[in-house]
């Protein structure tokens, strides 16, 4: 590309070419715009203030500390919830409409794929849950434990995995939902082969 260069060179001094050359490339000695330098110096100032606030004065909480504190609080809440759980509490929860509704929502999003939308059970997949017959323990705590820990039968899991990841509150809510369909003291134990939803029609 050719360019005309016919301006009077004496009128305005060209910038000075720096003495060094790298790979034959030379550079002019030009100033950076001050606003550009301002962004550089402000970022240095910011870095200093950031360091001060995060690592010296501790004005801004360390993310790791904050995270660990949050996790510890969560664990404490869960432990407290499990520790306080007993038959009476679970039955009490089963009479709380809000808890039952929460539990039903969890059921409808997860449990129903194996136990059926009407709790009638699915043959070959999940037991019936709306009758008074219980294979893996006929107490409220047993139901809670089965959901929380999963079911191990004859030394191997038989299909239902631990739902602990839901968190104690939601596992308790699902338990409360199931208990809300039962009568306290009327849950009956039954053997695996007699469970009606699994028998061959």
């Amino acid at each position: 590309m050719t360019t005309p260069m016919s301006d009077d060179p004496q009128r305005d001094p060209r910038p000075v070419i720096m003495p060094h050359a790298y790979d034959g490339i030379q550079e002019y000695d030009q100033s950076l715009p001050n606003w550009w330098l301002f962004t550089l110096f402000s970022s240095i100032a910011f870095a200093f203030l950031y360091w001060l606030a995060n690592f010296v004065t501790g004005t801004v909480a360390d993310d790791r500390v904050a995270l660990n504190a949050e996790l510890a609080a969560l664990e404490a809440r869960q432990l407290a919830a499990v520790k306080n759980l007993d038959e009476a509490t679970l039955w009490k929860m089963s009479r709380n409409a809000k808890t039952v509704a929460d539990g039903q929502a969890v059921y409808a999003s997860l449990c129903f794929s194996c136990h059926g939308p009407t709790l009638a059970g699915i043959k070959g997949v999940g037991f019936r849950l709306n009758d008074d017959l219980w294979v893996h323990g006929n107490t409220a705590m047993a139901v809670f434990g089965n959901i929380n820990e999963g079911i191990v039968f004859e030394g191997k899991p038989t299909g239902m995995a631990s739902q602990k990841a839901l968190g104690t509150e939601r596992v308790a809510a699902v338990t409360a939902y199931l208990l809300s369909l039962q009568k306290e003291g009327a849950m009956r134990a039954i053997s695996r082969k007699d469970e009606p939803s699994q028998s061959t029609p």
Partner: protein
Amino acid sequence: MKRPGPIRESVTTIGQDGTRPFLQPAIVFGSWWKARRAVAWLLIAFFAALPWIEIEGFPAVFLDVEHRRFHLFGTTLGLGDLWLLFFVITGWGFLIYATTAFLGRIWCGWTCPQTVYLEHVFRVLDRLFEGDHVSRAKLDAQPWSDPSKLLRRGGRMIAYLFFCWAVAHIFLAYFISIPGLYPMITDAPLAHPAAFVAMAVATGALLFNFWWFREQLCLIICPYGRLQSALIDDDSVIVGYDEKRGEPRGKAAPGIPAGDCVDCHRCVQVCPTGIDIRQGLQMECIACTACVDACDDVMTKLKRPTGLVRYASLRELGGGKTRFLRPRTVLYAAMLAVGLVVATVSVLRVQPAGFKLSRAPQTELYAVSAGSVANVFRAKIQNKDEVPRRFFISAESAGTKVAVLNQSAGMVIEPQAEIALPLTVLVDRQDYRGEFNFTLRLRSEDGKISLLQKAHFIGPDPRTLQK
């Protein structure tokens, strides 16, 4: 002190000591300027009108980030359709590149928001409050103790603030819609702190840009201008000075021949980036045609033909003829055609529903019972439409007979809602011949929507099931 004229080695608006000299360019209301103003007003009107135009119940453009839904001219896209953005971004880039090969930096001079607002809103306010370039330069030199400077510059800044504030609001309306924006305007700022801060920051940034930063954005921040040397070739049409006709510049004298350029410096006075176009194509040139209008004006007065500075390719300015048909333009056209076809097909295939499939979390991979083998999936179904719809899910397989449990009644999904649904897929034990691939089909009741998802059925070795 008289400011030195533009040189190619340095940027006029960056001082030797790093200060920022402000330009007060003159204006020539020539035919190019009038054409550019018409385009600019059209673009501003378009930008301001889009949020007000309602198409199928939503603004023509409503990027509803809060609900992760994007309404574009009557089509609603969800986050799942975000991949279509690929076509927008590559298409935009490609269009600019292809246009540059033909017409140089026409984007900068005619359509870039920086130029459109700076030249046709903010410089208009400059002239309105502070007069022409001569009186503006005088005002620059006056001390602040002069009340007329305070009054005129203050008035200009208030007007600036108003326009920046208006543009920021229109910009915000693209993301929260006019009905969403209105209560935010009438309520106290603290009622919607996030929106208020966004508006205030946008207003401040616009004000800083159009008052102080101006051409620095084009010269230093914008990458497009820096790509000019790669995007432009000798046949691209640029704003150029006809050196052959113009030189040698200045007055003719006996024994000294002269070209058509009278060295009046009018082209330098009007340049918004402070270059001398007669020094050839430069990175700073935003191809705004101000120098074309300026030179044509002078040539007309001198009764010489116009076009000493004009739209022309480097080849044409060198005495040749511009070739529009060249390998790169042919290639660009071919690629543009391919891109347009693929983009059109993709957009037409967007369905008003979404269907995604994954294995259900926290369940066994499969369950085996006396009668059947089961796999549990989690389906995410989204109704992107504005009416509730009933959907059915069925399983199809070429080999094994496969069924979806409890899905005969289907499910109704509310408009713009998404549900997560566990799906139990069953195979009878006697039909089971090992793992296989199958397809799940989501179908709307009216049959208008049909979406497929491939899935894999996991199960035990069939021999272990034989007794």
